[in-house]
Structure formats: structure tokens, C-alpha cells
């Protein structure tokens, strides 16, 4: 019998982790943005179409996670499906999504607090700094949110949002206007397609739960949990768009805290305070998940020799302090920029474009690995992958392009510029800096020699050595 784990994550926590990572505070802003793109109260249709597309993504990540049930899966499947340098470039660019989500959450919570306590908007920057410094310090001190706390936080957030939305819709007599007509004279079909691109962002990060693959009781729980999470996200986000389209004005939809107006309309000052608490609670999962995922990934990448050695240093709480500080600082700069410029829609669009890009990359990996690793056992095999993976590749590439040139309902290339600059820097780093890091590492290794005592080879071992394929790139030296 296979060895069992003493402590392992069950389905409830897989669902809460997947849903909680996706359901950041920025969800409210993205949902409000959708309402503006679509006629009447039909924004839920964009959420549904995006949800349908996310079923493809669920298939890709379920298959890839089954192939590589590890926290390092993204590195593994990309490296095996494409050139390692391309894989590293995409992965480094993808890290920007994590910074964007953390920044957005900090900005939204900071703005929400200033609204509720009727403070000047610049005070939000102080709250943003406080939130991010607290999150950074907590991570440096090795504070972790336990699975049970994460479950409670996620399900409380979801229940709170559903209750407020239902109360809001009830106040309006559940009188839906044009729930099945997203297109009219003022809302062309292209706006609906843009809405779908934005709605992808509502589900984004649900797949981050695959980094917990080593901690689950049964590996199959990951794909089951992700599917349930998609269903939960669809219901909650569809309700939010319905309630917002009924209760909020265009001006309120365009603010950084539409959820507060919604709660205020639905349940007065009690609703307002409750929604502020719910908004703040989303940060628990977002900050915990994002900091942990990204800092561990950067640590492992540095240990592999692909980031400077400082990123693999640990403090006396065994926390990788440089990645944590770098993430905190990058998020603070990004959130402050957004607070000063008010350009949160560009942030959302950039996140949506990056997520679509990574989904297209996942589709590509499924296609390539069906050929390259065709005999490797797959605990989950995506149905109709030879058809659905290329279809998804085309759709998500198109949506990534669309999201990167659209901010709100307008044509705007800011997201594209952000992605291109980040991608170029990542590529330059991969092509110019990493080879030098590897060269130094190899020199250190050669100078150090091997510690393992050499044994006289047995006849059997000699035969194996002769017939073994020559492998390269298996760097023996740990990153400093």
C-alpha cells in the first residue's frame, strides 16, 4: 500500500482555495465593468460564455496537473512542451498577474475604507501601504493561513455576497429586464465579445490550486475541486452582475467600490459595513495565496539557478525574504500608481489579457505533450483534446489580444504596452542574464568537486552506463 500523508487537504479546502484565489476584491470591479459592456441585465450571459470557455481551461489544467502533480508543474509542462527559455519568459511574465491581483486588492480595499469612513481619496494610499506592509511582514514572519481559516473566509465571503445580491434583487422585485438580449443599438456584438474577454478575469487564478497538488488526500480532488469552483464562481458572479445592473447607476459602476453601493442599496448601512468586511476578507485568501505561490516559485527558480542567488536566501523563519519583499514592493508601487492615476481598469484589462495568454499556453502544452509524452499515464485525460485544445488556443489568443487593446469600452493599448515591456524584460533576462548565472554556477561546481565517494563499478553498472542516454543540463550544484 502506498504511503499515506498524516495531514492532507480534502475536497472542501480544494474548492475553497480555488474559489478564494479567483474571488479577489477586483472581482467586483470586473463585474461592474461587464455591466457597462452589455445591454440591459444580460451581463450574466458574458459570465456564462466565459464560464463555458473556462471549462476548456479546466480540461487543460486537469490533464497537465495529472501529468505533473507538483507545485512546479507550470515549469515542468512548459519546459517539456516548448523551449525552456520561452517557458521561463512566459512564466516570469505570468508572475506579473500575481502582482496585479495583489495590487488591485490592496487598492480596492484602501479605496473602500476611505469611502465608508468618508475620508479623502489620498488616504487610500496610506491604507494600501499598511495592508501591503502587513502582508509582507506576516509572510516574513512565516505566518500562514490554515486550511480551516481559509475555508471559513472563502465561504463567508461567498455567502455574504450572495445574500446581499439576493436582497438587492428582491428589492427590485426580481424584475429582470432583458436577461437574454446582450446586444442592442448602443451595445454592439463586439462589446459583448469584449465583455466575455473581461469575464475570463472573473474566473482567473482558479487554476492556482494546482500548486497544492502535492498536499491533497487524492490527486483527483484537484480537478474535481476546480470544476466545483467554476460552478460556484459562475453563480456568484452572475448574481453580482444581475444585482449591479439593476441597482447601480453608470457613475457608480465606474467607481473603485461598486460593491459598496450595491450593499448600501440592498441593506443600508448594515449592508455597507458587511460588504466592507467581505471586501477586506477577500484579501486574506488573495494575499496569502499570492505571496505563498509566487515567493515559493521564485525561491525554487533561484535554487534552480534561474534567478539571482539572493532570492534563495531564507530568514530565521525559513521564509524566502527577498521574493517576499520584492513582491510586496512591486505590489506597493503598482497599487500606488493605480491609486494616483485611477487607472484600475487598465490593471483589470492587463490581468485579463495575461490570464487569457496563459490559458492559450496551457492549450498549446496539452497539444504538444499529447505527442511528446503520449505514453505517460494521465490520471485525467481531456475529452476531445485534439479538437478542443487547438480551438481553445485560437480563442484564448484572440481574447488575450482583445483584452490587451481594450480598457473599459474604449480602444486603449496600455495593457498591451505593459505586457510587451514586461515580456521583453523577461526575455532579455532569460537570454542574457541566466546564461551568465549558469556559467558561474557551473564554475563553482567544478571548483568544488564531488563529495560522494567513487565506487568501483560493477559489471552490471558498467553496462548500464554504456547504454544510458547522455543527459545534459541536470545542474548538480544548488543555487547559492
Amino acid at each position, binding site marked *: 500500500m502506498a*504511503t*499515506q*500523508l*498524516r*495531514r492532507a487537504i480534502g475536497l472542501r479546502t480544494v474548492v475553497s482555495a480555488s474559489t478564494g484565489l479567483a474571488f479577489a476584491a477586483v472581482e467586483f470591479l470586473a463585474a461592474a465593468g461587464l455591466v457597462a459592456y452589455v445591454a440591459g441585465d444580460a451581463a450574466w450571459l458574458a459570465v456564462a460564455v466565459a464560464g463555458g470557455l473556462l471549462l476548456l481551461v479546466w480540461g487543460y489544467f486537469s490533464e497537465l496537473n495529472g501529468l*505533473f*502533480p*507538483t*507545485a*512546479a508543474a507550470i*515549469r*515542468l509542462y512548459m*519546459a517539456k512542451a516548448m523551449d525552456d527559455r520561452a517557458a521561463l519568459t512566459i512564466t516570469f511574465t505570468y508572475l506579473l498577474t500575481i502582482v496585479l491581483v495583489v495590487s488591485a486588492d490592496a487598492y480596492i480595499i484602501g479605496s473602500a475604507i476611505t469611502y465608508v469612513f468618508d475620508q479623502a481619496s489620498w488616504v487610500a494610499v496610506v491604507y494600501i501601504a499598511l495592508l501591503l506592509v502587513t502582508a509582507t511582514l506576516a509572510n516574513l514572519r512565516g505566518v*500562514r493561513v490554515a486550511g480551516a481559516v481559509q475555508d471559513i473566509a472563502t465561504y463567508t465571503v461567498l455567502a455574504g455576497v450572495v445574500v446581499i445580491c439576493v436582497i438587492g434583487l428582491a428589492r427590485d422585485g426580481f424584475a429582470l429586464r432583458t436577461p437574454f438580449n446582450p446586444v442592442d443599438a448602443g451595445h454592439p456584438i463586439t462589446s459583448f465579445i469584449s465583455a466575455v474577454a473581461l469575464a475570463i478575469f472573473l474566473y482567473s487564478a482558479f487554476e492556482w490550486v494546482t*500548486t497544492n497538488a*502535492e*498536499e491533497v488526500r487524492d490527486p483527483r480532488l484537484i480537478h474535481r475541486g476546480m470544476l466545483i469552483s467554476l460552478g460556484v464562481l459562475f453563480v456568484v458572479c452572475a448574481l453580482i452582475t444581475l444585482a449591479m445592473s439593476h441597482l447601480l447607476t453608470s457613475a457608480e459602476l465606474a467607481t473603485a467600490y461598486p460593491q459598496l453601493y450595491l450593499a448600501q442599496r440592498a441593506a443600508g448601512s448594515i449592508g455597507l459595513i458587511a460588504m466592507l468586511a467581505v471586501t477586506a476578507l477577500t484579501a486574506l485568501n488573495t494575499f496569502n495565496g499570492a505571496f*505563498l505561490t509566487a515567493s*515559493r516559485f521564485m*525561491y*525554487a*527558480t533561484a*535554487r*534552480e*539557478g534561474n534567478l539571482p542567488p539572493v532570492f*534563495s536566501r*531564507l*530568514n*530565521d523563519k*525559513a521564509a*524566502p525574504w527577498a521574493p517576499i519583499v520584492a513582491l510586496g514592493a512591486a505590489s506597493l508601487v503598482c497599487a500606488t500608481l493605480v491609486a494616483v492615476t485611477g487607472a484600475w481598469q487598465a490593471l483589470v484589462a492587463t490581468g485579463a489579457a495575461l490570464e487569457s495568454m496563459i490559458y492559450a499556453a496551457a492549450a498549446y502544452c496539452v497539444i504538444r505533450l499529447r505527442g511528446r509524452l503520449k505514453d505517460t499515464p494521465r490520471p485525467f485525460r481531456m475529452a476531445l483534446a485534439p479538437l478542443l485544445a487547438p480551438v481553445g488556443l485560437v480563442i484564448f489568443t484572440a481574447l488575450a489580444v482583445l483584452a490587451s487593446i481594450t480598457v473599459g469600452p474604449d480602444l486603449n493599448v496600455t495593457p498591451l504596452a505593459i505586457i510587451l515591456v514586461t515580456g521583453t524584460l523577461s526575455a532579455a533576462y532569460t537570454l542574457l542574464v541566466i546564461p551568465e548565472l549558469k556559467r558561474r554556477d557551473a564554475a*563553482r561546481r567544478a571548483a*568544488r568537486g*564531488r*563529495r*560522494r*565517494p567513487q*565506487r568501483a563499478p560493477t559489471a552490471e*553498472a558498467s553496462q*548500464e552506463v554504456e547504454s544510458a542516454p547522455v543527459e545534459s543540463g*541536470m*545542474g*548538480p*550544484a*544548488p*543555487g*547559492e
Partner: protein
Amino acid sequence: MATKEELREALDDYARRAEASERVRKTLKGWNCLMRLEAPDIGAIYTLRISDGQLTEVTEGGEGAVDLIIQGSGEDLTNIFWGDENPASNYMQGAITTRGSQEDVMRLDAMAMFLYLEAEGK
């Protein structure tokens, strides 16, 4: 290919160096973990107990549930515990697999890194 005895020798050397390391003691203080090391290609199973950051016990075989399971080829694991191969590289390339808390994985890797650095005199 490494033998079971070579893997055991590597583990014993690793335990000795970890015990002697001030850095390991300080950084990994308070860490408790029961781990199982499996090298199916050479039929080797070892159970390692870490108490308060110290590798206190290495026993052959083992039954029951553990906090962390590490699986790899006997050759890779032997090289890793001698400090000749980078556990993080092996992990990132899928040569070794783990099951259990990522915190435990990272601390174990950190232990290997400290020992490597100390062997380099850093």
C-alpha cells in the same frame, strides 16, 4: 546506479553534517517532520525523523502515515544527500517528486542548501 547501502551512507553523512550545522539549527528550529524517502528502482525505503530542526533518526523501511514523501531514483537521491546534486533542480525537472506540505519541502531543501554552503565555506 546507486545501491541501497550507498543511499544509506549518503543519509548518514547528511545527518552528521546537519547535526553539526549551527545555521541549520538556528533557521530550522521548531521544525518537526516525519518523512519517507522512497527509491523504487533500488527497493529502498527510509524513514527520517526531524525534531526541532534536527535530523534525529534515519531508519530503514517504515510503516504508517508521514508528513512528507519523497520519491526519486536511488542515484538522484544519493547524489542529493551527498550534496552533489541540487534537490531544487531535480524537483523542478520532475526527477524527484514530493507529497506533503510545501513548507516541509522548502525547509528540507533549505537544509540541503545550508549544508552545501557550509561545505563551500560560506
